[in-house]
């Protein structure tokens, strides 16, 4: 609303000096970063989500210091099988007598890595395909759209199972499978947003100024699509972590690494439910819920903060 725009970075011309637009761009970037940070801090749920994520990230990073990897060795387990939580084993033990707490902390590493890496793949493919299919009308755009539709209607689990079987069970396979199957949603979203941006008159103006496809996409479409993609990323991370859990639970995970999914799988197959070993099931389960929820909260907050309409008030 305010037209005055007397923001502090609007210093008199003197300080902008002859040092050209680089100084200018830096000033502007600093200002927008400040605005972004202030906006995000105002979103309480987002800050809470970020705190939870930070905690898990720190635990994952410090896992080797907190729990000697020797504790994960089945042959050197110190406790008895399926021991209930106690002063020695805070979260009890698994069927081999390993402490569940150590497993959960080590499992966070795999779950987070899979979640983030798969999301990165999914975002890159989704954004490229989405922008491409909206920007290039004609056969190329049509082809990209059909491919998106095709991936969208393929049921995730059967495809994932087939891919995991063909490519072999490893962490890389899991990441690839999740990444390659979760992008169509993003592509759809990006395509819709790109179409909206391309209908704006400033794209026409850029065209008449002589800007080619590359210019239009990098200078106008991408900056206006990225906030949405970024907000969507957090939701995709949540889905990827859940997918990793699902695949591992189905026994398609990497058998040599501990993740929350493999823990759940082991708990299930070793009769944790029938023997009442709730700590074994609940610990990884709650971790999954907490991380997924935290990512979702951060995503929501980002969506609000990055909405361009917000900055105009």
């Amino acid at each position, binding site marked *: *609303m*305010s*037209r*005055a725009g007397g923001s502090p970075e609007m210093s008199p011309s003197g300080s902008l000096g002859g040092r050209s637009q680089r100084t200018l761009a830096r000033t502007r970037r600093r200002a927008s970063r400040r605005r972004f940070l202030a906006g995000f801090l105002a979103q309480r749920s987002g800050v809470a989500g970020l705190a939870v994520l930070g905690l898990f990230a720190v635990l994952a990073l410090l896992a080797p210091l907190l729990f000697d990897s020797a504790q994960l060795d089945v042959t050197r387990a110190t406790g008895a099988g399926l021991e209930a939580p106690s002063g020695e084993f805070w979260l009890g033990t698994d069927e081999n007598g390993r402490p569940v707490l150590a497993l959960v902390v080590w499992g966070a590493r795999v779950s987070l890595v899979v979640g983030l890496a798969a999301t990165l793949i999914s975002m890159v493919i989704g954004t490229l395909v989405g922008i491409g299919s909206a920007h290039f009308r004609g056969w190329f755009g049509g082809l990209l759209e059909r491919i998106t539709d095709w991936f969208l209607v393929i049921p995730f689990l059967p495809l994932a199972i087939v891919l995991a079987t063909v490519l072999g069970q490893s962490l890389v396979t899991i990441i690839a499978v999740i990444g390659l199957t979760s992008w169509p949603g993003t592509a759809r979203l990006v395509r819709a947003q790109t179409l909206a941006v391309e209908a704006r008159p400033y794209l026409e103006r850029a065209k008449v100024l002589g800007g080619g496809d590359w210019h239009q996409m990098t200078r106008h479409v991408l900056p206006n699509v990225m906030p949405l993609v970024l907000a969507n990323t957090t939701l995709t991370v949540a889905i990827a972590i859940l997918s990793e859990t699902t695949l591992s639970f189905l026994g398609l995970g990497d058998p040599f690494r501990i993740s929350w999914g493999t823990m759940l799988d082991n708990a299930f197959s070793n009769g944790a439910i029938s023997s009442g070993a709730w700590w074994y099931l609940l610990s990884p389960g709650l971790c999954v819920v907490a991380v997924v929820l935290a990512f979702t909260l951060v995503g929501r907050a980002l969506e609000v903060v990055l909405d361009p309409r917000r900055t105009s008030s």
Partner: protein
Amino acid sequence: MSLLEVRDLSVTYRTAGGLVPAVRGVSLTVEAGQSVGIAGESGCGKSTLAASLLRLLPSSAKVGGSVLLDDEDVYTMSFGRLRAARWAEAAIVFQGALHSLNPVHRIGRQIAEPVLLHDSTVDGAAASRRVSELLDQVGLPARMAKSYPHEVSGGQRQRVMIAMALACSPRLLVADEPTTALDVMVQAQVLALLDGLVRELRLGLIVISHDLSVLGTSCDRVAVMYAGRLMEVGPARQVFDAPTHPYTMALSAAFPTVGDPVARRAPRGLPGDSPYAGDLPPGCPFEPRCPMSVDECTSVDPVLVPAGAAGQLAACIRVGQEVPR
């Protein structure tokens, strides 16, 4: 007794940035069979004024003064009474006819809706008779009741909106920018329709527009608004042709007379922009852009005083003084 009497109306919005006065002390009367135009630029408060007449403002707005509809204060009415008054006594045609119609319902059903809502004795057959009657009144064929909004043109949609507003035979019609986004030829058609309704049904009509030239030729009286205030009021033709307030002069000159040698290759406008309602200058709000301001203008906030022809009022301390033009 006037059909509508607005007395010293003020509307203030509470915003995060403080109080924003959108309408400041506006008085206005509309008689049956009379059309009054309210002219002003974006942000001058004219749409807030229109909404305030029927108590359609958001809860963040604080209203002062009074709006008398047939001598009954709209702001002291019970909600039930207000609901009845909103269609049966005064109806509003909103800006943006293109988006105000529901795309999934046939036009006939949308026109019948207020009829059925306000009179429980009306049955389906009577309602559809009323719809044909209303369509005829706005110059559309009765078969259009079976069409969907996307099947008719912009001008026709505007007519449908007017038919909807007429559904409960109101005595006052408020039209907010009824011709914006319409072509000149269609605009002329819609204005002729509104004019006919005022004469035939003895409606009171308030037309809100940014285009003084349209109001000057189609209304009986015109009020010019700037920064929430009425700057000039008077007989429409008179205000448009012989304005006395410098702001009205500028507005009038902004719409040149085709064929007038003075306007040829000489577009005229005002430097600067309208003030933001939350940050008004002291004294006359128009002073910063006024080509004939004097020192006194920065301290005195002028009130409407008789100026020019009979019935013409202007809020300017220089009115009546010999002003070099």
